[in-house]
């Protein structure tokens, strides 16, 4: 379906074969300052980390299905000291690290790190990021984080066990939990390094998007992916320093004897009473001031990428481009003033609770607008049902469920009951896995040809999609029921309580589904790594898409474009009446003035 002049395509390859960059292996693949290589480094790292995070989750699921039973194979190796069983200590460590790895080493870096790096210069027509070395550093600062998180498992007393939220005093006083000794300090160090890495990326993205757009690439001609990355970068730039500061304050409390979060007179495990006039609530405010916007950092880029992919796969312009941009901006803006909804039960001022509740409910509005616009995009389109489209549809469909279940907890009185139950776990897995990760799966398949010049296997992709989709829904939908039944999160053995005993079969069903989903991910990895070497080669524009990245060779050489692109119109002119016999209009396709005026009217 390549729509470009074949000679041009050929010329591109020839020109870039030896661009005067005969660099050593080290500078090409390891210390690369090329945004595309950094994006690929991020992608490979996060895909591998996803398997680690998923493995930790399967440990959690095993315990909930077969509490206190010897875990076959894996348990004998890892939990040999406990006879192959998962102890309650190990259980808290498992879910803490599952969340930490998935959030800080998978979802945030795969969106902003991998796709942000790879796509931003290509989609705005730049030759690289504004600060290429800073960009490389942003990748390499993830490794100390991986080291610190990884090493925390081996600390005396076991890994961090205070939940991913790290609420003090559990995370602060080393007597409170065995994992709260050095492991928690390591965890905080890891968090800091992840933060520094994201910060470098965020500064770079903002600068690049503001300064380095190709001629003609006005703000409202940018693809929604770029808009979403731009807004995400702003979110990160404003929210992240707060978390980093909070992390430093906690490290100071732990190591230097300050008392930011420690009230006086607390006695844990018969240790002498603490002194100090701190407030544990302070941590919650600082933590959620970052971590609530962070859920949009984990979602917005996927929203942008899905918008791009949906338009392409439906061969239709995105429905309501500007409302999509405004909704993203609204989500980001409101995202800063709703952090308190994580703290409805913390005993804060009830009047404050009301303001947080109203703003939280209102954040559902831009999300609803976006959903309707995606459906509007599919409506009347010529839908190509390939893996990309399936994953994008799953994104929309799962986001509907995740969004709707959010309304329950935004309603504060209902939240009194479902807070800290599995209902919450169901909700955020629907948003972060069901929506974001399906978006990422689609994006991997969609931009893979541009990354490696080869296509991924469609059949394997579809099998992976179906198994993941079924496994996902069977794992996470019943969690809503568990939550309504009052099953709290983070219980090593809920069946200890008679009113939860009857939920064991349901948990066993969910665990079976989770294992199915976990093993399905090997298909993705296999498909990904094998296709790098054996996938069928493709031209510049295998999907017939409009964006600037598709005018560059696949894979683009150093400097990206063989002809500096000039942009004439927006990125979604699929099926445009002025496109002639083609069904799409590349952003670089020149359209005579009279026809351009006709385009503007739309």
């Amino acid at each position, binding site marked *: 379906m390549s729509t470009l002049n074949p000679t041009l395509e050929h010329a591109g390859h020839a020109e870039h074969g030896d661009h005067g960059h005969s660099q050593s292996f080290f500078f090409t693949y390891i210390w690369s300052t090329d945004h595309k290589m950094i994006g690929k480094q991020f992608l490979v790292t996060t895909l591998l980390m996803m398997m680690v995070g998923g493995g930790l989750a399967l440990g959690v699921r095993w315990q909930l299905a077969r509490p206190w039973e010897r875990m076959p194979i894996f348990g004998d190796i890892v939990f040999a000291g406990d006879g192959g069983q998962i102890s309650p200590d190990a259980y808290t460590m498992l879910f803490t690290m599952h969340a930490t790895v998935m959030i800080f080493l998978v979802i945030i870096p795969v969106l902003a790190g991998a796709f942000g790096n790879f796509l931003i210069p290509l989609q705005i027509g730049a030759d690289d990021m504004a600060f290429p070395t800073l960009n490389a550093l942003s990748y390499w600062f993830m490794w100390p984080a991986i080291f610190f998180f990884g090493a925390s498992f081996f600390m005396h007393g076991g890994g961090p066990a205070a939940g991913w939220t790290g609420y003090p005093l559990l995370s602060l006083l080393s007597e409170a939990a065995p994992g709260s000794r050095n492991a928690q300090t390591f965890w905080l160090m890891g968090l800091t390094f992840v933060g520094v890495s994201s910060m470098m990326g965020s500064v770079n993205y903002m600068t690049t998007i503001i300064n380095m757009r190709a001629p003609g690439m006005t703000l409202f001609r940018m693809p929604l992916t770029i808009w979403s990355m731009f807004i995400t970068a702003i979110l990160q730039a404003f929210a992240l320093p707060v978390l980093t500061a909070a992390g430093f304050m906690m490290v100071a409390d732990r190591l230097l004897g300050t008392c930011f979060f420690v009230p006086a007179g607390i006695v844990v495990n018969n240790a002498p009473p603490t002194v100090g006039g701190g407030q544990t609530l302070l941590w919650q405010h600082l933590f959620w001031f970052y971590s609530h916007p962070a859920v949009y950092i984990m979602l917005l880029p996927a929203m942008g990428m899905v918008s791009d992919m949906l338009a392409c796969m439906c061969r239709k312009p995105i429905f309501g481009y500007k409302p999509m941009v405004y909704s993203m901006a609204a989500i980001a803006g409101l995202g800063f003033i709703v952090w308190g909804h994580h703290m409805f039960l913390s005993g804060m001022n*009830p009047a404050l609770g009301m303001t947080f509740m109203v703003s939280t409910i209102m954040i559902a509005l831009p999300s609803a607008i976006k959903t309707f616009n995606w459906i509007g995009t599919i409506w009347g389109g010529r839908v190509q049902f390939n893996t990309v489209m399936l994953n994008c549809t799953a994104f929309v469909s799962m986001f509907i469920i995740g969004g709707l279940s959010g*309304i329950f907890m935004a309603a504060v*009185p209902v939240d009194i009951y479902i807070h*800290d139950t599995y209902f919450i776990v169901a909700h955020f897995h629907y948003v972060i896995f069901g929506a974001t990760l399906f978006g990422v799966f689609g994006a991997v398949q969609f931009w893979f040809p541009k990354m490696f010049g080869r296509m991924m296997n469609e059949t394997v992709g579809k099998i992976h999609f179906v198994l993941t989709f079924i496994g996902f829904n069977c794992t996470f939908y019943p969690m809503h029921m568990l939550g309504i039944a009052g099953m709290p999160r983070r219980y090593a053995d809920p069946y200890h309580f008679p009113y939860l005993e009857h939920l064991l079969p349901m948990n066993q069903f969910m665990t079976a589904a989770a294992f199915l989903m976990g093993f399905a991910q090997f298909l993705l990895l296999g498909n990904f790594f094998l296709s790098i070497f054996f996938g069928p080669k493709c031209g510049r524009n295998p999907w017939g898409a409009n964006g600037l990245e598709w005018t560059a060779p696949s894979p683009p050489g150093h400097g990206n474009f063989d002809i500096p692109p000039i942009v004439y119109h927006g990125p979604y002119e699929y099926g445009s009446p002025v496109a002639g016999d083609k069904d799409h209009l590349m952003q670089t396709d020149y359209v005579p003035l009279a026809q351009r005026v006709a385009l503007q009217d*739309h």
Partner: protein
Amino acid sequence: MGRFWAIFFVLTAVIIFVVSWISPSQNWWFPGDGLAHSTLGSKIDDLFYLILVIVAVTFVGTNAALGYALWRGATIKQDEKVWFSHGSHSLEVIWTIVPSAILLFIALYQLDVWAAYRIKGFVKNRDGSPKQIVAVAEVTARQFEWRIRYPARGKVLKPTPQPDDLYSVNELHVPTGDLVSITLRTDDIQHAFFVPELRVKQDAVPGKLIPVWFDVTDTREYEMLCAELCGWGHYKMKAKLVAHSTEDFDAWKDQVSAEQFDDGFRKPAE
């Protein structure tokens, strides 16, 4: 093949709808008999069901639209022109105003329930007069148990212990009928007081005394647990809440008082 996928997504939505629908009959719903055993709790349930209806209608509507769009997209011929449209201003306006009206309704409708839970002045009797709240006990959470302190019969709860205070561990006794309140605190780290069948939950925050009020409508035992991660023993912070009639509550207090202040000395029989 495209039609197959359209059906696939619609079927997923149908299965999810059906599973939710049959859940109450399968006992996958609210704990116990499915009813809240407190007045405020049943208001939460009403609110939950109201939102459930709104959400279910939206779910069916959006999925029907999505399914129809996919089905149409699958049946359109490859050489047919697509509907070239950059959007519709009036549609955008409609689907901005309608959801915001619904969301605003939800936001405002629930304010009283939240207020009744959190602001003393909003707890009203049927005739609108402010309701009296009886402070029954101080509940102190610690790893991994609940310690409870009651005032002696006829006395009121004081912030500092009195010599004749009564104590129990992992058993909170309250009278039914009245709106009772407990003072929640923690000795060590953060915990959360949770009685699922009463729909009551509140974090116990280090350094703070937090009042929690509720009423219990039936005299029986309820399970009481910790809802905030508090270490390895989080799952076994198990306790019970025992609701007595007012007379039984007083009798229970007398009995505990007799046991607690019994020094073991018995006068020999004459």
